[in-house]
């Protein structure tokens, strides 16, 4: 039997916690955690360092709550989904009736890379729905931009604050939310002429372009992962998109940015990139690998083209 607010619910019980103060965070989270422990449910904290310290200090010694480093878990959305699904499956295999998690994306994720985290928050309503999970996603309203908060309310079916628990009036089903066009913040590098521009490149030529601009800016692993991602994206564009395929590459002081466009409509699967396509078809696995391999991936449909923008290095640019 599930306990607490998740009692009687099937699948994923997903709540947002927009908190105005540390006291409010604790007021919501502590009963959630202690209730989970006392019910014998796996109870997990995946917060950033500051808030995790705050919560840990407020819990009794030896509380039984598991603390995970939130920064690692929330490095990339597709990585987070994969890690969580694996963890949840493990708890389920051990006989858990409900799993409780409180987590938060890092503050940097509330900036120019928020678009893929908004997609994450929406997609997990589906991705975790096969698990008896009750999770709280904490957002500090003192540092969260209002546009982000609007997305939070649209991607979480429920909201809980110190004042109580309520359904989110603007909640939007994942398939509808994820099908909306969401323009990513343009990277300032994109306002400059690309260092490399190719039309209908073969995957080999695209891979070579990455190697040719390598000046040691990226660590070897990150460079190779970008090569993997570029290869997948160009292959998908050639196979599933409409020509011409346009490849542009910029190199900044702390990042490499690649944009690959074609004149098709892009993937039809709303969960594209965040989850592997079940049958492995239509480039779904390749896009999922791309999401695992880059520090930011932005999807954009506009001006008759579908564009994927990949960033290696530091994706948190400022204008």
């Amino acid at each position, binding site marked *: 039997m599930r306990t607490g607010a998740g009692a009687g619910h099937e699948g994923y019980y997903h709540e947002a916690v927009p908190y105005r103060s540390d006291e409010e965070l604790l007021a919501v989270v502590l009963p959630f955690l202690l209730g989970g422990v006392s019910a014998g449910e796996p109870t997990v904290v995946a917060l950033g360092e500051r808030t995790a310290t705050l919560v840990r200090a407020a819990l009794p010694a030896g509380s039984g709550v598991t603390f995970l480093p939130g920064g690692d878990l929330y490095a990339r959305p597709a990585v987070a989904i994969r890690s969580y699904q694996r963890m949840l499956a493990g708890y389920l295999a051990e006989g858990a009736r409900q799993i409780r998690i409180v987590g938060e994306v890092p503050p940097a994720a509330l900036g120019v890379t928020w678009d893929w985290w908004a997609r994450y928050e929406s997609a997990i309503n589906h991705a975790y729905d096969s698990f008896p999970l009750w999770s709280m996603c904490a957002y500090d309203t003192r540092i969260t931009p209002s546009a982000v908060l609007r997305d939070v309310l649209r991607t979480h079916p429920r909201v809980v604050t110190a004042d109580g628990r309520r359904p989110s009036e603007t909640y939007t089903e994942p398939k509808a939310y994820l099908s909306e066009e969401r323009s990513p913040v343009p990277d300032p590098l994109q306002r400059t002429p690309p260092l490399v521009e190719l039309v209908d490149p073969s995957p080999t030529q695209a*891979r070579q372009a990455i190697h040719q601009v390598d000046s040691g800016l990226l660590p070897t692993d990150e460079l190779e992962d970008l090569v993997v991602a570029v290869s*997948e994206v160009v292959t998908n564009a050639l196979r599933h998109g409409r020509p011409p395929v346009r490849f542009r590459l910029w190199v900044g002081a702390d990042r490499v940015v690649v944009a690959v466009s074609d004149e098709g409509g892009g993937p039809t699967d709303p969960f594209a990139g965040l989850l592997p396509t079940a049958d492995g078809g239509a480039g779904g696995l390749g896009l999922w690998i791309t999401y695992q391999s880059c520090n930011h991936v932005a999807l954009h449909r506009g001006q008759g083209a579908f564009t994927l923008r990949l960033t290696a290095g530091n994706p948190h640019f400022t204008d």
Partner: protein
Amino acid sequence: MINPRAVVPYGHVCWSYDDPAAFERRARRFLADGLAAGERVWYVAPGPPEPVVERLAGLVGFTEALRRGAALVPGLDSTYPGGVIEPVEQVRRFTAATEEALAAGYTGLRVVADVTPLVRTPAQLRAFARYEHAIDRYMRLRPLAGMCGYHRAALGDRTIAELACLHPVSNVPDVLFRLYACHPGDGAAALAGELDTLNHEMFATALEHADLSPVGGELVMRAGDLRFIDHNCLTRLHDYAGVRDATAVLRTPWTAAARLVELLGLSGVRVEAAR
């Protein structure tokens, strides 16, 4: 007794041609190198030998080499008997010919063969491709060198590519990867170049043709010159090793392979860092 570590010349070249005269020019250089190195040389060609002998008369030393038995112009049918080649038997023939050359005091045997007529049908191609890898393994160990000529216009790009990728060296520009023999002590085979979604089917075909044998439950691929491998090709390798009840061990400097294997949960592939 074959010493797997013996240092022997290793030359197995695939030469695709559109213009027979261009092939012959390259063949002449290949043969001239062999004669200079004290090898016995063969120029295997379809049809009667006389026109070939006449054309090669201009190659310095060739006529004299023919006279003393250092050069031969055997027929294609007698060198590769049967409409569809039998790989093991064919390797045995070249083993005997190589040992005979050595016994006669030559440093090895070098063969140029335009084998276009031997790969015209799918059955011929399958058999000959298997032979190509089998003879490649022998060439790694003993002083046999070969230049395999294929007429592109007669065979088509796909057939040429299927054969070229089984050679350590070829002149075929669009073949991005190579699967060829390495010293048995180093692994089941060597893998070089780039393997991606556009050539994963050809990779699977090459693996089938190579018919690699695991040792101690491992199928070690020496991939020091592998520059890229994608998830499709890793999955192909995983499946191929699985059918052979083996774990594929990919020794490569391309570290992303290890992350892809982990990501895809390919339990039948292990990636080891190699330089």
